[in-house]
């Protein structure tokens, strides 16, 4: 089960980050103030309604003001909210003063998913981090404003296109936690869900090494399918023949495409590779030059995998006879690979 269910309170989910405790403290301080004030208001209201209920012959008081009393209930709340501001401000300062030597992960938000890129180049759909090590996320967005929200860490920051927003935290408990998009971003806003997996620090490096090489261990077409969803291809290119920002991948391999400059090109391995490296050089007629280059962002094995995946989407292309069955990793035999994250199962309904 997810970490939240074990130690959460009535009001707050489990706390798994270093300044979660500080936020919770302020939360419960304000909560205390609210309860005291609310009890005061309710008790006074009920008391007055009862004590001063309408009774024939009883004259209401004509008192209409009392300056000392009014000054009192102006000054006391001022002092109380002054304290609340101060505590909230101190907690916020800590969120904005990161320690040195942070482990940096680049985060790209897109409709509708997250790409977490590690220092060794590995890109993951879920956020894997080591316990007890301060981590900085550098947030950017490919399209609209998204917001990265991890309730268990009490942290949230918008991913704004054209800007790098930074956030840091230190996870204190191993386990799996929710990661949501909190800024409304269109149709599948509520599906833009990922997991945070906090690893034992000694095992984190091993996980990263293992994860970075995942593409080499899968049949190329399957690896390509994962890359298609993980690296944001799905944002522009459909695989069912319907329209999109870029051409659909369905039935494209082995076909001739008309280009914007009037010439034609055969969609083969070379064309796909060139489209990834120099997207502006051969644009299909009817589409804009908007695709970013993937030069240096994809390994050769990944490019090959994507080519194989696009091949597999073409009815006209004869796939080579399937490999010997036992060689396919068994976890991929049961479900289509697109439903996998690269780092573990998503449990989103």
């Amino acid at each position: 089960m997810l970490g939240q269910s074990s130690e959460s309170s009535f009001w707050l989910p489990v706390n798994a980050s270093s300044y979660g405790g500080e936020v919770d403290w302020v939360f419960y301080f304000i909560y205390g103030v609210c309860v005291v004030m609310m009890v005061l208001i309710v008790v006074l209201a009920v008391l007055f309604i009862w004590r001063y209920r309408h009774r024939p012959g009883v004259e209401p008081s004509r008192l209409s003001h009392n300056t000392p009393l009014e000054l009192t209930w102006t000054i006391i709340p001022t002092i109380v909210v002054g304290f609340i501001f101060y505590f909230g401000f101190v907690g916020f300062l800590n969120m904005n003063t990161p320690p040195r030597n942070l482990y940096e992960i680049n985060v790209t938000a897109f409709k509708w998913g997250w790409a977490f890129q590690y220092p060794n180049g590995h890109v993951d759909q879920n956020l894997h981090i080591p316990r007890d090590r301060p981590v900085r996320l550098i947030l950017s967005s490919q399209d609209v404003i998204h917001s990265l929200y991890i309730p268990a860490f009490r942290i949230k920051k918008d991913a704004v296109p054209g800007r790098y927003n930074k956030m840091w935290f230190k996870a204190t408990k191993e386990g799996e936690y929710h990661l949501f998009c909190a800024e409304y971003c269109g149709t599948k806003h509520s599906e833009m869900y990922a997991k945070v997996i906090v690893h034992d620090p000694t095992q984190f490096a091993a996980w990263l090494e293992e994860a970075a090489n995942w593409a080499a261990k899968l049949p190329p077409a399957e690896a390509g399918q994962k890359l298609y969803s993980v690296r944001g291809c799905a944002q522009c290119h459909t695989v069912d023949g319907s329209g999109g920002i870029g051409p659909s991948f369905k039935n494209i391999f082995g076909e001739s495409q008309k280009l914007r400059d009037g010439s034609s090109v055969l969609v083969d391995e070379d064309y796909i590779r060139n489209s990834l490296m120099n997207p502006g050089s051969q644009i299909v007629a009817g589409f804009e030059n908007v695709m970013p280059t993937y030069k240096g962002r994809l390994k050769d094995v990944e490019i090959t995998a994507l080519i194989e995946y696009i091949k597999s989407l073409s009815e006209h292309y004869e796939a080579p006879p399937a490999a010997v069955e036992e060689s396919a990793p068994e976890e991929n035999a049961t479900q289509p690979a697109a439903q996998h994250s690269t780092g573990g199962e998503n449990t989103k309904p």
Partner: protein
Amino acid sequence: MTIATTASPELEPAARSRNYLNQTRGLRSWLITLDHKRIGILYMVAILGAFFLGGVFAVLLRTELISPGPTLIKDPVRAWDFYNHMFTLHGAVMTFMFIIPAIPAILGNFVLPIMLGAKDVAFPRLNLLSFYLYAFGGVFFVWVLLSGVIESAFGIKLYGGGGLDTGWTFYTPYSTSTSSAVVPAVLGAFILGFSSILTGLNFIASMHMLRPKGMTWFRMPLFLWALYGTSAIQILATPVLAITLLLLVAERTLGVGIFDPALGGDPVLFQHFFWFYSHPAVYIMILPAMGIISEVVSVFSRKHIFGYSFIAMSSIAIALLGFLVWGHHMFTSGQSPVANAIFSLLTFTVSIPSAIKVFNWLATMHGGSIQLKTPMLYAIGFIMLFSIGGLTGLFLGSLATDIHVHDTYFVVAHFHYVMMGSTLFAFLAGMHYWWPKIFGKMYNEYLGRLAALVVFVGFNLTFMVQFIAGAHGMPRRYANYLDEFTIYHQISTIGSYVMAAGLVMVAINWLDSLVRGRPAPENPWGGNTLEWQTTSPPPTENFARTPTADDPYALHKWRYDASIEGYVKVAE
């Protein structure tokens, strides 16, 4: 002590039976009327229509969320689109077409000139124009929004539609890139904004020019002080919305690059512009509500309002400070930590005048002679809900806790307590309070009280659990959610049904009173503001002779007379 019916003794019995409702007849006489009371009723019909529409979609939204996954529509992607169009419609219609105009346009229009002892507002023709701007902009706006919902639900395209799925906030760059009909929707909101500006202008001019003999600024009823503060914000803030929306249209159609980072713009700039209007707009919603509560609490406690000048000044303080806190909507946007700290500090200063008002209302009840009639029940409900809304605002003003609960259901609950708890309850308090004056008919008191109770219970059932869901991390504007949040959504949805049932009871009571209600006396509650010193309903010219105002809360000047079931003035 002698008792005399002094309100309008000079009117002949025949003249008494003639009032603004029956002075002239026919649809045409209503549609071209310049009478502020009839314009108030036109607004009432239109705004209650908008409230009904927004309410239906509130219930549909909650029904969609009664279980995780697609509920009303089975295909997930269409269900998400359906939800996104619905919550946009609910939010936009409720904000622009109900909460902002409801109290000023309906009750303000009806009551303000009479409270001033005047025949009409300062500019009656402008008043009619602002109604038609509302009606025209509203029809346009609703058409665009509703067609989007219909299209996503049934796949039927309507002429000129296209829908809106941006939320009522129109955040860029989503609003500049979505395929829904942002430009027509924005133009609808733009027109609605003009209606708001014109009403504010009219009210301010009226209060400056038409106050009667004896009504100094500090003898103005507090409802008028509240409307004064509201109008000032409407005039100063609404043009900012208009400019922002025009910039959005320019961005979308011409690609001018104000908000698009690829062209050197800044998407967060839109949020600054938007909230520079929309945060003050929250006070456009709350201030008139507070004005009504001040009147109702005093009258039904039979006691002079406590701390008149503190309440009046706190209205003005709220209006001024409300302009300085827009940045607290952007604590997570990446704006500078210094800006965040300043906005946080300023935000807390707004809470002080609000707290002052709550204590003043309670102190007004102290030593009073309290009658729990329907308007008073709504007023007490208001004080409770507004207190919860205001206190939970402390979590949002405080930086450390806001980061956690920002854009979650905690915020949804908070602003429903503040905006709906305050505005709707005060609106209902005011509607019941002035209903006898407006229509000359009494509603059923028992049904009125029962409905108030049901609405109050339904409201709390709906929104209280959302605080918990939000604090646990349930983000807002989610068409789908994780299983662990199911229980909160289910309780909330059931609460929304209870509240809807309560509001249906209110509607039945009102309609029933129009048909079968007993005639209302001039002053059923014993208020001392001038509207209670003319007939119910008032004649077209409001008063036979311009009245003289005195202390609006000198309630001891009125005595209950059982024979007319109303109050009569005590001869001095």
